[in-house]
């Protein structure tokens, strides 16, 4: 192992050590606080490490690299994990989710994300994605005291396993055609100019089907509402913000390498339109906030797919921007929901009635997140949608842009419905617990990020144009 290998692998090793340490601590003390502190410390540590690693290192033996993208997204996922862990402390105590395995599993999932974001070959990519998913299979079902928990876990596990099989088979077929696992060459050789090899096409079909599940694109979206509803709120935040971001990143590693990706346009087009249509229309009918946000997330991923289709017009940049934006929005939205639920709020829209006056802070954050999801300026959601539509029009996808923007107008209705509910009159004056300090900290950071990325996106856009030319 050379120094370069260690340099690159260190953030992952740090997470793995942190996870093991968390498990071992459990033998000494039952105080979950120490475990959480270890978790937050290791995630922040690896985020810091990623930011200061010298760029463009490659560790061929490990199939890892410290490219700009991997450092940006690895750091982002690690920070997201730190935020989620801090939120979980109070939430889990309230819900009676005890034990060090929560923190350890979350760290393992983050480990998977980091491995994925620094992968240079298809195998590492797959292993990273599955390590992450494996963590989530456990996390979504970790609330053992609730009967719905097991059902949630199973609903995520079964389609997840199917998608893993599709992904593995797709990668195998692509390997079969190209004879290499290196991402760049494998993609170049399979998505060629002119008519691609049918076996390679079958491989790409399987790959897209697998990713569609991870991104919950219609028609592979059926697990989403139940899992968003059933998982603990901080886990949902991580699932929504982190795992989807990782899946977008995976596509961003693959698609820009293609010599000619037009062959994928038709399936992606279908995914985009169906996801926006089904997600936005189904969200209109929801009465539970989390299910509503689940359908909204399906729709949001449709917009990301628009960006991926419009690669020639700068869409890859837009997709990367939106992945980060959506991560921040998810953290804010589900973090706020976690804070509201911890203080005793139910999950239907009726329970949220008047929450804006009982819990001004958490509701304010939720409101901001909703406006951002709806794409209203000056939030990051607006800037993201703006970049996506600009890319779409520039690459000639005008029909897609018009469909997208009309459905965005539809989506306003359900976001506003929640917003209004938060600030409508209610008879309940039960205030419940105030937010705790970690919640204040994380939610303030997330809201600040929503506004800063919306008002001053210049630095991030520049960085992304540099990384994804």
């Amino acid at each position: 192992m050379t120094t370069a290998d260690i340099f690159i692998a260190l953030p992952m090793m740090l997470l793995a050590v942190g996870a093991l340490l968390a498990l071992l601590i459990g033998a000494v003390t039952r105080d979950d606080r120490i475990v959480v502190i270890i978790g937050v410390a290791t995630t922040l540590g690896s985020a810091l490490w990623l930011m200061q690693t010298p760029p463009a290192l490659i560790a061929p033996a490990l199939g890892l690299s410290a490219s700009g993208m991997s450092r940006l997204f690895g750091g982002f996922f690690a920070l997201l994990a730190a935020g989620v862990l801090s939120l979980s402390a109070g939430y889990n105590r309230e819900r009676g989710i005890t034990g060090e395995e929560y923190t350890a599993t979350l760290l393992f999932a983050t480990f998977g994300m980091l491995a994925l974001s620094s992968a240079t070959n298809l195998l590492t990519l797959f292993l990273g994605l599955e390590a992450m998913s494996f963590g989530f299979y456990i996390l979504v079902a970790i609330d053992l005291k609730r009967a719905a928990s097991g059902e949630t876990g199973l609903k995520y596990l079964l389609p997840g396993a199917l998608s893993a099989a599709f992904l593995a088979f797709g990668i195998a077929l692509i390997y079969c055609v190209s004879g290499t696992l290196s991402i760049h060459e494998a993609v170049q050789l399979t998505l060629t100019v002119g008519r691609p090899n049918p076996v390679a096409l079958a491989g790409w079909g399987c790959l897209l089907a697998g990713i569609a599940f991870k991104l919950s694109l219609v028609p592979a979206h059926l697990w989403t509402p139940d899992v968003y509803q059933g998982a603990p709120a901080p886990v949902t935040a991580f699932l929504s913000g982190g795992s989807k971001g990782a899946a977008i990143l995976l596509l961003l590693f693959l698609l820009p390498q293609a010599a000619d990706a037009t062959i994928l346009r038709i399936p992606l087009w279908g995914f985009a339109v169906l996801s926006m249509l089904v997600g936005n229309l189904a969200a209109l009918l929801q009465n539970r906030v989390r299910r509503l946000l689940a359908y909204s997330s399906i729709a949001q991923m449709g917009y990301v797919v628009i960006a991926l289709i419009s690669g020639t017009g700068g869409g890859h940049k837009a997709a990367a921007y939106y992945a980060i934006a959506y991560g921040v929005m998810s953290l804010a939205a589900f973090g706020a929901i976690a804070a509201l639920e911890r203080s005793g709020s139910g999950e239907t829209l009726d329970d949220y009635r008047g929450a804006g006056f009982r819990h001004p802070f958490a509701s304010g954050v939720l409101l901001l997140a909703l406006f951002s999801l709806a794409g209203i300026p000056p939030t990051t959601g607006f800037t993201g949608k703006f970049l996506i539509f600009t890319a779409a029009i520039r690459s000639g996808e005008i029909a897609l842009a018009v469909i997208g923007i009309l459905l965005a107008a539809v989506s306003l209705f359900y976001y506003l419905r929640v917003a209004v509910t938060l600030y409508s009159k209610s008879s309940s004056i039960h205030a419940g617990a105030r937010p705790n300090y970690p919640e204040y900290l994380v939610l303030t950071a997330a809201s600040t990020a929503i506004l800063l990325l919306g008002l001053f996106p210049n630095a991030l856009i520049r960085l992304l144009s540099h990384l994804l030319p």
Partner: protein
Amino acid sequence: MNHMPLLTLLLLLPLAGALLMIPLSGRERLARRLALSIALLETLLACSAWFCRGNQLSSAAPKGFFLFTDSPWIDSVGIRYTLGMDGISLLLVILTALVTVIAMLVSWRSINERVSLHYLLLLAMESGIIGVFLSLDLFLFYLFWELMLIPMFFLIAIWGHGRNIYSAIKFFLYTLFGSLLMLLAIIGIYLIHGSQSGSYSFGLAALTGTQLSPAAGLWLYAAFLLAFAVKFPIVPLHTWLPDAHTDAPTAGSVILAGLLLKTGAYGLIRFGYPLFPEAARTLTPFVIVLAVAGIIYASWIAFAQKDMKRLVAYSSVGHMGFVAMGIAVWTPVALSGAVLQMVNHGLTTAALFAMVGMLDERTHTRQIEDYGGLWGKIPLFSSFFVLFAMASAGLPGLNNFVGEFLILAGSFKEVPAATILAFVGVILPLVYTVRLIQEVIFQEERRTLPMPDLTTRELLLLISLALCDIYIGMHPAPLLDILKAPVALLTGGAP
């Protein structure tokens, strides 16, 4: 001379004030006074801009502007922070500051819950509207264009009455639906200009003169027109307005009618026509037909209203039809008339909504049939009511007359038939206004209602509006002078 601080200050002062309101929840008196002082300070600032109109700017600034500021913002996609003030913006910014003060005074007593939030929203909205009137970068403009909707949405949803949630959502959906298509059109013209010139920019000055194929120009302009027409509102896109007005709190109605409706007209003047002159000319007959139809239709509907607020709301639709016509004709006289009429309508309608709100506050009813005989009981109120109602109906010597006259005079040569029809639209408001005055003020009392006369606060507010109305009605020359240069530049003549 660098005048950047004044425009930026105008934009940010209300926003800073809004942020100050956050820690003041529960301290109602302080919140009220602080908000009012900030709004008054903003009015002073806005008026101080009046004295900058002699400024000579460097050649970098677009012609006709006497205050201008420009700095890079999101330069990776060509978005700049460009603000500019010419005569049109100046009048509308002063109007904005004034109407916001009025809205605050009107809600002084009637808002008693969540006071600081209420003032926060009013101040945030003021910032958004001023931003719309000052932006010279399309992206920046769009940002403020949407930003000003959110406070209004919450004003209606939280403090409104009746079916306020329904109305708030209807208002938001209508206006945003149009705006989203405009966003696509903004991106469209940005890309077309970028691919032609090689430099991507959202600046109005850069985008003006982009070569567009007729079809592209028409589509893009149609998207802009849709967004502006909803705000205007031009019949048949007006249906959100009566609902929003009826269910909004008084302060909301005052700002909605006084200011938000003007943003649509302003957008058409500042962006719609200059960016797409050919498409605008193609669609002119269409807009004129809709405008005239709106004038007559809205006045017709206003006859049938039993609720005073709804009546004033429909009269707004009619008056804005005149503005639409003045803009569509696009001659110097008609355009100055249209801008002046925007100011006039803002002042008069704000006053009428404020007065209906005062009645509602006292008696908790807005039905015309519940009133009568106010002249004998509250003479002060009644005389102001008659004054503003007559101003709204276009009585010579009061402000609306000047605007309507200029619009009609400027249009007659271009579109005689439409002007004659619109002239009917001048008479119709007189009829329903006289009916309103007769039934509410002069007819004998129908129900005994508790009715104290105006308080000092209300009196002050009405006097200030009345002075503006009479001044503009008697001596509109200074305002028209200010409008001369920008209007001449817009319509293509020499200033």
